[in-house]
């Protein structure tokens, strides 16, 4: 399983690398000790930054899960917008840049999930406390992070990202007439 996991991280190299980078950035901003910042290592922590446990602080543990997820998701959206419509929707297969951006888009989408350990830290820091308000507001985030980190354990996020990339133009196609109208106004 670790071998498959590492292989999918290598295939989605840009996404894995930048996830490590975003986690390092959070560690730096939130003063979290980062032990191992290598993006690629032959273990289940490949594509993640190894850092000190964050069971005490719910906001730090939330940030370390949420920030890389959001940044990679936004980047996947940018790159898939610039490639999936041209390549998959319209069928222009002559543009080489589209293939590169499609790879970037799928890579970032495949590396949104936090590590299983980070997800457990988040769970312990929020649901190990008595603060009901925190439990409620973090509930949807926890559900998302839990589902994604569990899927990533079995490298299923890679398959999901490929499906997401192929279906991207059809998922967000409803916004095209609005954007076109906006462009004509500008």
């Amino acid at each position, binding site marked *: 399983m670790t071998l498959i996991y590492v292989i999918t991280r290598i295939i989605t190299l*840009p996404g894995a*690398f*930048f996830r490590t*980078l975003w986690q*390092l*950035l959070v*560690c*730096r901003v939130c*003063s*979290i*000790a*980062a*032990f191992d*910042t290598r993006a690629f290592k032959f273990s289940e922590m490949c594509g993640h930054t190894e850092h*000190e*446990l964050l*069971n005490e602080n719910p906001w730090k543990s939330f940030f370390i899960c949420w920030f890389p997820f959001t940044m990679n998701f936004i*980047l996947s959206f*940018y*790159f898939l*917008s*610039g*490639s999936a*419509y*041209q390549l998959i*929707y*319209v*069928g*222009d*297969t*002559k*543009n080489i*840049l589209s293939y590169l*951006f499609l790879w*970037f888009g799928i890579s970032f989408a495949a590396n949104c999930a936090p590590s299983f350990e980070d997800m457990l830290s988040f769970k312990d820091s929020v649901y190990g406390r008595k603060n009901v308000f925190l439990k409620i507001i973090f509930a949807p985030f926890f559900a998302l992070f839990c589902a994604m980190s569990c899927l990533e354990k079995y490298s299923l996020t890679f398959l999901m990202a490929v499906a997401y990339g192929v279906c991207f*133009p059809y998922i967000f*196609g*409803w916004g*095209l*007439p609005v*954007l*076109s109208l906006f*462009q*004509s106004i500008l």
Partner: protein
Amino acid sequence: MEDEKVLENNENIGNNENSVATENTEELNKELEELAELFRKELAKTTEEFETGGEVESEATEGSESVNDEEIADEPEGEPLLCALCGESYENGKEGICEDCLKDLRNRPFGFVNVLLVIAIGVLGIVAMRGFWDNVGGYALAYEAKAQFNMGNISSAKTAYDNAISYFEGKEINARNLYFESAEAIFIQMSEGSVSMTDVADRVSKGFDDSALPMPQYTKYKNMGNEALVLYGTMQSFYDIVNKSEYQQYTADDRAMYNSIMKELDALIGAPLEIQTVDGKLKEVTHNEAMVYFCQYMFAYTSGKTYEAQEYLAKVYETEPDYLWLYAYEYALSSIGAGDIETAEKLAGSLIEADRQDVDGYSLYSTIARLSGDADKAIEWTDKALEFDPENAELLRLKAMALVVKGDPEQAKEVIDEALTYESYGILYYTSIVIENELGNTETVEETVSMLQSYGLEVSDRVNSYLAGKITTEQLFTEGTGDVE
């Protein structure tokens, strides 16, 4: 004596020695006893200590099972440990690392190279979004075309696809998927006959340029394009036969020549036909059987052989029921004429199911409703179709006939006059004659008849019967063919 003295001395020495030895032995014994006493005391003490120390040890063993990860992680204060990074001993730390090293790790710099990489990916992201923004108008047109196609509005989809293709051709972008999908929309309708067939083949060919990868989803379009080429080739073979020099003098009365032409057309079924496929290869296929029957239907119909024409049309239906565009409307009309309303309704439903904007389907439903005497329903069906094609003269004519059946000739006149502004052909004028006669405008009727005669057109038998008073308008529009012819 000396010996005795020696012996005595020896005895004395021995006695002395014995006394000394005795004294030493006693002292030794005394010491040994003291040592033994000491040993006994020490042994007792050690035994006591051992017994109390085992209880303490057992308590420690039980307690360690309940220690959780946090307690293990937090090292007991006061116990000196070695830092895993710097190797120095420390008292306060976490996860095997001293406080100073933890402080350094918390302040680990982000790195200049990492900053550059973030900037680089940001720039690439902007380039990607810029590429999307430049073509968002075309993507929106493609979205509209696909949405219309998925809703079954084939006519609107065709127009939207053409707009999208023009957009991308203007930017020199090969919109392969749009070529294929628009070809499919045209293939469903084939509204312009042979022109549509060549259009389908051209669009599919454009999609198969040199850089096309052999993707499995494109096989469907390739087969569709080749099928359109076979249909076109079959039609060309038909024209080649009827335009032969020996048939130049053909008239509808010449039965021998008619049979000869039909025999040659029969021979096309199964005969080889060479086409250049959409991907540029020469391929030998056979003529399309359904298209041969349709060509025979056209020839028989134009030769006035109505009954035989219907037979050929039935063969088209049996051979290729999916080619609704080829036979459905005409076959439904002939079914109506034969009184088979059920078949006509089924075909009308199939036409609308294939294309929600198929005017022929709505026309058939309107005709069926009018024949059954339900004028309101007939008007409703024509109004639905007029939403897609408001300038369709035939739809307006059907509406006018339904209005006459309903008993509103004034409104029927407005509708038929509007139809005549868009088109001018025989049956439109015949319908106009009937409506003007209903309104009592005999002068207008005579003028129209004269105008038609000046063009060499005679009023149809059914209209003549109506003008002669042999049948009423209701009988004209609801019985027999239910039409002016």
